[in-house]
């Protein structure tokens, strides 16, 4: 069993509060992803869990033990760094064995473990190489192997895929997912890429300015975002936000504002074309044809920009007037503070 709990964890550098009062429970075997824009404190939070940064106040509990004052080495976490942080002067084998050597394990046992892990990650024929002689993906796997070999309670990943090219990133993503299934270990993963978060996570924590905006499964975040920030951050292309003032002169249905609603949120992929005057009337400003889909950028009459991802249509001409509608279940309502109203659960 390896669980992680954060109780009112805070981190400040002088007057700047990087992490503000965070409460979180990570269950055993869960793949938890911290996501947020750069500077939101997600990496700092991860480093606090790792023990590389101290906490200003609050408690971090691993397996129900407060570990605030426990050193990074003794917390039982292993971390994969963004830069991989492989020791450049050591072979792959030595890189993976270093942690075990430090724990005073017997030589033959170390060798056994390293070779087993290398096999798991398909590194077995690279064990004598130096990190410089490896490709990006291989280095990444060595970094992961170095974490696995120590059999930690919790794996921590700090944007591990951000240095890889797009193709490799996709394949490493599925490899990570597979690894998680196989090891069944608790993993915490930091990324700024919402696609990575959506595809990997059991649960996602959306962070902004050191605070948790929402915690939930990818589906929950996509279908029931708690506020405009989460709604805008999760999902690609971004959700459209339409102030209700822009809707004057439009047919009311299905854009019925509940009381207090200031903004409506509609995802681009939920728009469909309709007959004139049945939906929103927009003027096309740009189109991006992508085969099965067409991304249409358009403006409402008052100039509010919206995007629509239309399925199986020929791209509309520039400056053409279109009518777009959506079903009521796909409309998110937000109040003046950007909080979701009546999250139709």
């Amino acid at each position, binding site marked *: 069993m390896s669980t992680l709990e954060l109780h009112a964890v805070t981190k400040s550098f002088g007057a700047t509060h990087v992490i503000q009062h965070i409460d979180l429970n990570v269950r055993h075997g869960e793949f938890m992803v911290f996501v947020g824009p750069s500077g939101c404190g997600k990496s700092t939070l991860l480093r606090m869990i*790792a023990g*590389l940064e101290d906490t200003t106040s609050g408690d971090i509990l691993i397996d129900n033990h407060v570990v605030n004052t426990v*050193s*990074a*080495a003794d917390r039982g*976490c*292993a*971390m994969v*760094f*963004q*830069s*991989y*942080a*492989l*020791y*450049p*002067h050591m072979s792959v084998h030595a890189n993976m064995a*270093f*942690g075990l050597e*430090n*724990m005073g394990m017997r030589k033959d046992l170390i060798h056994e473990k390293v070779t087993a892990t290398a096999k798991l990650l398909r590194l077995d024929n690279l064990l004598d190489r*130096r*990190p*410089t002689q490896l490709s*990006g993906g291989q*280095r990444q796997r060595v970094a992961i192997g*170095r974490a696995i070999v*120590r059999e930690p309670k919790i794996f921590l990943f700090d944007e591990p895929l951000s*240095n890889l090219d797009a193709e490799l990133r996709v394949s490493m993503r599925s490899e990570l997912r597979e690894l998680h299934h196989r090891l069944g270990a608790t993993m915490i993963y930091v990324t700024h890429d919402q696609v990575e978060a959506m595809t990997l996570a059991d649960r996602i924590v959306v962070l902004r300015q050191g605070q948790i905006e929402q915690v939930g499964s990818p589906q929950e975040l996509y279908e029931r975002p708690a506020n405009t920030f989460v709604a805008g951050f999760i999902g690609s292309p971004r959700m459209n936000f339409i102030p209700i003032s822009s809707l004057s002169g439009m047919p009311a249905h299905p854009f019925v504002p509940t009381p207090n609603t200031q903004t409506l949120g509609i995802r681009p992929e939920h728009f469909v074309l309709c007959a004139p005057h049945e939906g929103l009337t927009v003027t096309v400003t740009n189109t991006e044809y992508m085969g099965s889909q067409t991304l249409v950028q358009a403006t409402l009459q008052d100039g509010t920009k919206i995007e629509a991802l239309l399925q199986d249509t020929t791209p509309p001409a520039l400056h053409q007037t279109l009518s777009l509608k959506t079903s009521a279940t796909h409309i998110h309502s937000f109040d003046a503070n950007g909080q979701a109203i009546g999250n139709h659960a």
Partner: protein
Amino acid sequence: MVLKFLTRTRHAQRFGWTDALSYAYLVIGLFTLFAPVLWLLMSSFKTEAAIGEFPPTFLPYTQRTVHIDNYPQPLPLFNVTTEQGVVKPMAQVSRIGIMATMVDPAKPQETLQVNIQQRQPVRELSFATRNYTELFDKFAFGKYLFNSVFITVVATVLTLLFNSMAAFALSKYKFTGQKTVFLLIIATLMIPPTIVLVPIFLVINSVGLLNSLWGVILPAVATPTGVFLLRQYMLTIPDELLEAARMDHASEWRIYWRIVLPLSAPALAVLAIFSVMWRWNDFLLPLIVLSKSEFFTLQLALNSFQGELNTQWHYLLAMTVITLLPITLVFAFLQRYITTGIASAGVK
């Protein structure tokens, strides 16, 4: 290969004026830098008499000597031009003023009076290796050599160790007063070594290290230059490596020993070169600390060869050559480290 390398030109085929200029510059540079050293090397193989000769020669020549019956000593050989205009080799028995008593090796019984204007010494190329071998026999040269090597090696190892530890702390730990400590260390560069010479002497004297090799080694182990050099280099080692090591259960000492030190190898090599040169060539500190001749370093021994009235140049030169050798070797083997760096490789 060598010829091809030596005859390279800027443009293929053509030998332009820039090539001429470059080669001229290089040749002049080579000459001015190496001519004195080469002369020193050649002179170190000359006999005491040959060194004092005028005009001086580049190569070590000695006068040929012959053994002649009736004469117990080998006699110097000359080519004598006789009144008939015939040149024949004769040995000199004795000389008074401008007249020399010569003897023909073929007829040892007859002697002949010859004006010294009428003869030329017969000379041959000979390397007086005795200059070197006698160093070891006549003087405690081996002892001096050992002292110098001991001081240089031990002091360099200690310098690397202590300077790198200080540099590690100053580059990788955050603590209050870090800047102040660093500035203080750098500030000591402004104090000329001669100023602290007397205080150092007093300290060495009071801890009882006078006339001990450790008295020379210890005072200069911590060098501001070394700390600065290593700190600047260690700043380029990514902190993530240290954090990774910390997560890998490495103690701070192991991080220093297994991660930081190997990655600082290029900077350590540079400092090692410096340290070897400083210690090997150091004169002032050994001079005041070591007064007994059994503790003399080579530099002190060199100095003692230069007497007030009489300087034994042939030994002095031979010893100088030996003194130069280690530095040359150190440079030859470590200089490639000055330009290579390996630290940034593992981190993208």
